Every structure is written in C-alpha cells, then in structure tokens.
C-alpha cells in the first residue's frame, strides 16, 4: 500500500506541475523549459527557510509565491522583444542559471550534495508525518489548484490569452494589453510550480539539483503535450500516464537499469510523435505546434 500511496503522491505533484505549465504554455502559447527551475526554487527556498529559520509553512508559501512571481515576470520581459521561438532559448538560459546556482553555491545550497534532513511540513498544529497525510495534503492542493485553473479557464481573461497565443497583433488591435496578460499568467504558473517544489521537498526530505534539470522541464512539457495543451483534464491525464509508464515497464519485468534508459527514449519518441501527428494531445483541441491555418 505504501508503494501505491507514493505513486499517487508523485502523480499529484506532477499534476500540479503540469497544470501550472499548462497555464503558461497551453494558454499563452509560449514554450518554457524553465519550469523545473521554478519547481526547484520552491523546493530549495522552503527547505532552507524551514531548516535555517524554522519558518512556518504559510510564511515559506508566501515567500515562494513572491519570489517565483517576480522571477516569472522578469523572465517574461524579453519575450516582448523576441519572437516566440527564441523565447525558448531565454527560458533555457534561465534554467541553466538556476541549476548552476543550486549546484555551485555550496555554502547556501550544499551544491551537488543537496540538502538532507528537511523536516516534515507543519500546518498550524498538524505535523504531516505519514504518507497518507501527505497524500491528503497533496490532494487538497491539487483540488485547490484545479479550482483556480478552472476559474481562469472559464474567465474572459483566458479568452484574451487564447487570442494572444494565436495572434498578438489582433489582440493589441482589440485593446488588450498583452504585457499584463503574459506577466500575470507567468507569475501564477511559476508560483504554482514553486508550491509543487515545497510539497516535494518536505515529502522526500532530501533534495539535490539533479531533480531540477532541463530534462525535468522537458518531462513536464511532455506531460502537457501528450495530455493535451490548453485543455483542462489533459495535464491530469498526461501526469497519470507518464508517471505510471515506467512503473508499468518495471512491472512487466524490465530490469530497472534498462527500464530507465528505455523510458527516456520512449518519452522522446512519444513527444515527437504527438507533436507531429496529434498536436492537440490525447484530449485537447488546441493544435499547439501547428502553423496557423486559415
């Protein structure tokens, strides 16, 4: 049972990550490979604040939201100068900077050794120790985040984002201040990724930079694309499938050393297959990578 609980917790964390990346990618059309950087910042900030200052959960939560929102807004600024495709490189640079900071600022982050002994989360008086309690907590967060995303999806705000992802010129002509929209969605998406980081750090109790690499970002992108970018349930379905996938490989008897390599290859093949032949993903409707067809 412990194993299943663990898998469910991991699925929950990836649902949060995919949902938040979907806000950025599916709604605004900007591809970002910096998502695991925001995930990592959330994890490190929370781990360090709890270890060094014994901050309460709500204080760390607030700090992570503020830091990630600000960084998200800073990251989006160059997108007003460059074409969409090149924005990808800027997010890549950001990802590399964050990773190298985590890896090399040894006094603060412990470098490649990471941070261990991260204490469990305490919500007011509720000390979250068992896996079941963690599952419950993550379930609550998934629920709240789905609710928030649901509100955004149905709002006129999202309608403007849809317009922006398809035709920025027209959005401007209609009087929409696209800078504000992009900044808002990037701030929200990055903050939610940070929340996933907090939950992850305290659950695993050990973090190192290896969990927050560009590969991790691409894994989250795969979840979103394969599930269906821009759709409500797509990222949820994608997270379930892609987290379960290696477990199934193991289950049907692949030795874990082969399964790990096979996994990488299969994710890559799946991602390319979807981009080419099913750009709307399993249950989406927005053809993410397709050129605009009139």
């Amino acid at each position, binding site marked *: 049972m412990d194993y299943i609980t663990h898998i469910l917790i991991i699925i929950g964390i990836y649902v949060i990550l995919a949902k938040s990346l979907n806000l950025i990618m599916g709604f605004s059309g900007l591809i970002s490979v910096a998502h695991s950087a925001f995930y990592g910042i959330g994890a490190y900030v929370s781990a360090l604040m709890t270890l060094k200052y014994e901050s309460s959960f709500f204080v760390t939560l607030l700090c992570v939201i503020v830091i990630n929102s600000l960084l998200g807004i800073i990251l989006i600024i160059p997108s007003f100068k460059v074409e969409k495709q090149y924005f990808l490189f800027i997010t890549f640079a950001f990802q590399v900077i964050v990773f190298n900071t985590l890896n090399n600022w040894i006094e603060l982050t412990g470098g490649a050794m990471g941070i261990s002994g991260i204490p469990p989360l305490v919500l007011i008086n509720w000390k979250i120790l068992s896996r079941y309690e963690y599952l419950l907590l993550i379930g609550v967060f998934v629920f709240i985040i789905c609710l*928030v995303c649901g*509100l*955004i999806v149905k*709002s*006129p*705000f999202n*309608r*403007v984002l*849809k*317009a922006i992802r*398809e*035709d920025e*010129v*027209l*959005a*401007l*002509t*209609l*009087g*929409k*201040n*696209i800078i504000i929209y992009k900044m*808002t969605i990037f701030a*929200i998406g990055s903050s939610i990724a940070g929340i996933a980081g907090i939950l992850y750090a305290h659950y695993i109790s050990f973090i190192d930079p290896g969990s927050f690499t560009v590969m991790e970002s691409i894994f989250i992108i795969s979840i979103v694309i394969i599930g269906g970018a821009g759709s409500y349930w797509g990222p949820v379905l994608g997270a379930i499938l892609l987290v379960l996938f290696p477990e199934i490989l193991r289950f049907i008897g692949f030795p874990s050393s082969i399964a790990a390599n096979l996994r990488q290859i299969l994710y890559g093949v799946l991602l390319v297959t979807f981009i080419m032949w099913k750009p709307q993903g399993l249950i989406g409707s*927005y*053809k993410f990578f397709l050129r*605009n*067809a*009139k």
Partner: protein
Amino acid sequence: MNLQWLQVCDLNKHYNGIIALEDFSFQLKRSEIVGLIGPNGAGKTTLFNVLNGFVPADSGQIFFNNIELHKKSAYKIANLGVARTFQDLRLIYQISVLENILLSFRNQPGENLVNTFFRSGLCKKAEAKNRDFACVTLKKVNLIDKANHLTSDLSYGQQKLLSLICCLVSGAELLLLDEPVAGIAPEMTEKILSIIKELPKQNKSVIIIEHNMDVITQVCHRVIFMESGKKICEGTPQQVHSNPEVIESYIN
C-alpha cells in the same frame, strides 16, 4: 488651432527610402464616412497602421477627440475608441465565432483576474450582458446558427462580416476598414455595405479603403485619393471621380 474630431497633420513615413506617407493631412467629422482610394502601394494601409499605433510615423500629429495619438501604443489607441479590420483579414480562428465577438468588448471586468477571483458576481453580470448583445447582433446578420462554430469553419465572406461585427460591438467611434468587401460574393457585399451605411446614425465614423469605385460612390460622403504617400485630391465621390489625375491613374 480649432481641432476637428479626427485631425491628422503632416504625417510622414518612410521605409528605407520608400515613401509610404508624405505630408499627409486630413480631417474627419463625427458620423462621416470617408473613402480612401489610390493605386497599390499608395500608402493606404500604412495610414491605418499609423492611425492605430502599429507603426510610428516619422513626423506629424494625430488628434482624436483632442487626444494626441502619436507615439501611443496600439492597445491604448484601441481603448480610446479606434477599431480596425485588416486587408488580409485577421480573426482568432481556433475559437468560436461567439468568442471572437465577446473578445471585442472593451473594459470587461472579467479580463482582470482579481475581479475573476474576488468579484465573480460583477464578472458574470457583465459577461451575460455582452453575450446577449453578441447574440442579438449575430441574429441581425443571420450568423446566429454559426455562433458556436469554429471561426475557421466560416466562409471568407462570413469571416469578413464577422470582423466588421467585432469592430461594431467594441463600441469604437472610429472604424478603419481595410477593403471590407474585396473578394467576396455580391450578396455578402450588399449585407456588409448596408451595415456600413447605417454607422453614421449610430454616431460612428468610418474610413474605408476600397478599390471598387461603385462601392465608394454608394457609401462614402467624401473621398480622398492618394498616390505615393501623398494626398492628390479630396471631395465628393463625383468630384474625385472626374478629377483628371484620378482618371489617369485608374486607366493605368
């Protein structure tokens, strides 16, 4: 200086030596329809791009409702009440017809996420009102059965009609229409022209770019003929029609 409702003074715009606008001035009153004609490359679309803030003019001034538009960003100009359509037709094709119209309303409370989360009543009310208005408008132009279709499924003529409707619901007082009836079937042309003719009654003004002289004569109060970025002549459709330079240009 006594400013007209729309006053354009001495606009200049060059693209690497190509003259797109040269000392271009004109005025527009409320509830007036002005036709803008001229050969290909005359600078007509460039004038629209300058008016709605896409392209900064090299020099010159634009006053709209006593507000200087020059150097203002496009979305701000749109929010002052200037709407436009595009020669190459622009819509959001991957959303529904109704959503395209809803997108065009200005100052929607729900477009601000703070309102979405904390003042949902206000947002819902505004959205419902806009939706009703959009549906009434769609009924008027016989597009209501397409309301929930993807915009890319509409015919070209219907798409042109839709882009005009979007300008209308925005509540803009100045409409810049770039060839609104080029390349579409006669019935649809009639429909679109009849809508344009009604606009002065709603206190709206229009500048319309059009190559077809019949269309111009039908809807315009006044016509401006331009060539190589310069205004050559201006007057009633009949006056411009009989101007020797215009005749020469149209024969060539």
